[in-house]
């Protein structure tokens, strides 16, 4: 190892010491890196006293793929596929945020045709539903309910099929481009999407009957992992995690980006219906309610896409693509509401090159997960599984 100022090694030594001394009195338990409830590669080091978790030390980075380095080595357009691989369950939302940031830096965000914006929001909301379905389904599995998982995946498959039809890929779309779209929607997409909405609405009622109001499920999640609002804000939690704690904070409404101001939707928040405000059940319920709101938005998008913004033969979604993307020298931080919360990209452009000098991605899962040591203090190990599941993180975004 290099000769290093010993000041920089102190925290590591302190950590080793803590683990060594904890191993004498308490038990060190490794949950992960391959634990079924972590939905990815996350290692939680638990210091336990019998069945009680005294401390959780998360170890992340197993899925680190140098997103920021890629962003600093490739042009703005070339990085879009890499954004898809951050939160790979809601790729459309990621590329939408990236593209929006670049368009605002170029100053072309106001010239994007309405039809393109509506298609973007349509596919983003479809993808948000798919992401929430996974959150709900796998949360059921974590707690011991297998059927909701299969039902959610069955319905998610329809969304995957539709998005594959539009973009050519099931999960990593590269569909939203700077200044436009890869392709227009395929002929018949709107009708197929409407069929899906009509099919899916009763399925949500079924799902609610099966899981949301299930007494076993409520007993496992209500009053567990209560996250007070001030703690949530201080830890930078966002999305369903923050709304579950009872704050109406949705960037789609606050910032009003894209065409969201033209859509009518509600912001569901946790109310503490089954226990305390901000418990696992509240976070789960916010996601269920958001699916309904997304369906509402999809219907409004479809109404406009089938009427005043109808497909015309000469419509070219690539017409506004800039030839060369060289923004003026500036810094810009763009934030938008991804499926998991506030998704942000920070660009530093030098004004000469097509490649940004610094790119930073702020993943919502990263911040939401960082609150786990606080939430998990003094809970039972079985409750820790319920808490981890209710955070709904994607390791691709935590590690980037």
């Amino acid at each position, binding site marked *: 190892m290099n000769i290093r100022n010993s000041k920089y090694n102190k*925290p590591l030594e302190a950590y080793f010491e803590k683990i060594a001394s904890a191993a004498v009195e308490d038990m060190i338990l490794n949950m992960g890196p391959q634990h079924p409830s972590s939905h990815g590669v996350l290692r939680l080091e638990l210091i336990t006293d019998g069945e009680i978790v005294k401390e959780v030390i998360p170890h992340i980075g197993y899925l680190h793929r140098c997103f920021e380095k890629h962003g600093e080595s490739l042009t703005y357009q070339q990085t879009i596929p890499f954004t898809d691989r951050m939160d790979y369950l809601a790729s459309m939302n990621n590329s939408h945020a990236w593209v929006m940031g670049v368009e605002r830096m170029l100053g072309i965000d106001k010239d994007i045709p309405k039809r393109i914006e509506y298609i973007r929001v349509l596919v983003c909301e479809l993808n948000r539903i798919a992401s929430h379905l996974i959150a709900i389904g796998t949360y059921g599995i974590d707690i011991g309910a297998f059927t909701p998982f299969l039902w959610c995946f069955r319905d998610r498959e329809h969304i995957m099929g539709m998005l594959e039809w539009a973009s050519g890929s099931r999960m990593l779309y590269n569909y939203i481009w700077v200044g436009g779209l890869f392709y227009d929607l395929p002929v018949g997409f709107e009708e197929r999407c409407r069929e899906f909405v009509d099919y899916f609405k009763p399925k949500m009622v079924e799902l609610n009957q099966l899981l949301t109001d299930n007494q076993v499920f409520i007993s496992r999640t209500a009053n567990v992992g209560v996250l007070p609002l001030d703690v949530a804000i201080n830890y930078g939690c966002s999305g369903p995690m923050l709304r579950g704690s009872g704050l109406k904070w949705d960037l789609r409404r606050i910032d009003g980006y894209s065409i969201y101001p033209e859509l009518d939707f509600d912001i569901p928040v946790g109310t503490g219906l089954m226990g305390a405000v901000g418990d696992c059940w509240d976070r789960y319920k916010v996601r269920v309610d958001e699916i309904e709101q997304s369906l509402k938005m999809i219907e409004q998008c479809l109404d406009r896409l089938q009427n005043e913004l109808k497909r015309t033969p000469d419509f070219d979604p690539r017409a506004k693509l800039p030839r060369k993307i060289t923004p003026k020298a500036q810094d810009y931080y763009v934030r938008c509401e991804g499926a998991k919360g506030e998704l942000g990209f920070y660009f530093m452009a030098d004004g000469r090159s097509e490649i940004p000098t610094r790119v930073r991605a702020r993943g919502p899962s*990263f911040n939401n997960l960082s609150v786990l040591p*606080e939430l998990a203090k003094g809970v039972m190990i079985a409750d820790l599984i319920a808490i981890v599941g209710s955070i709904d993180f994607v390791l691709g975004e935590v590690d980037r």
Partner: protein
Amino acid sequence: MSFEDIKLLLTEKFGADVIVGEETGGLQPALLIDPDHIADVCLELRNNPNTYFDFLSCITGVDYGVEAGRFGVVYHLASIPYKTQLTLKVSKENDRNEDNLPTFPSVTSVYRTADWHEREQYDMLGIFFEGHPDLRRLLLPDDWEGFPLRKDYTTLDKYYKGIKID
């Protein structure tokens, strides 16, 4: 509170030399803060009922390049009650020696979310945060050498722990 009002508020509270400059060219104006005061400034901006920047969106470490010999940190604050955003920047000259990392005060005492953000910046760029409770590497293994997001970072080794690297 507008950008000018925030400037006035900070200079009244901490003196004129707390703000060393500003960037107003782009879409989002940024305040350049004196590095030693950043934690106090964040605390004041969070607690003052007129600003109330209670949400730290993001912390970004920046390597300004080998010629510039500067490192910086960018803070993106957001206020939930006022629905406003603010960018703060600090920067410092540094000789890129690994025994002498650029050091800034930690804001973990103000925003707990800064904990992981600062660990990541330490991990990737080798920026040391004074006063951080647990500044270990976050994404890379504990025994990793060098800081990958620095502009002069190169991997000379052909092998990492016996695994060949192309």
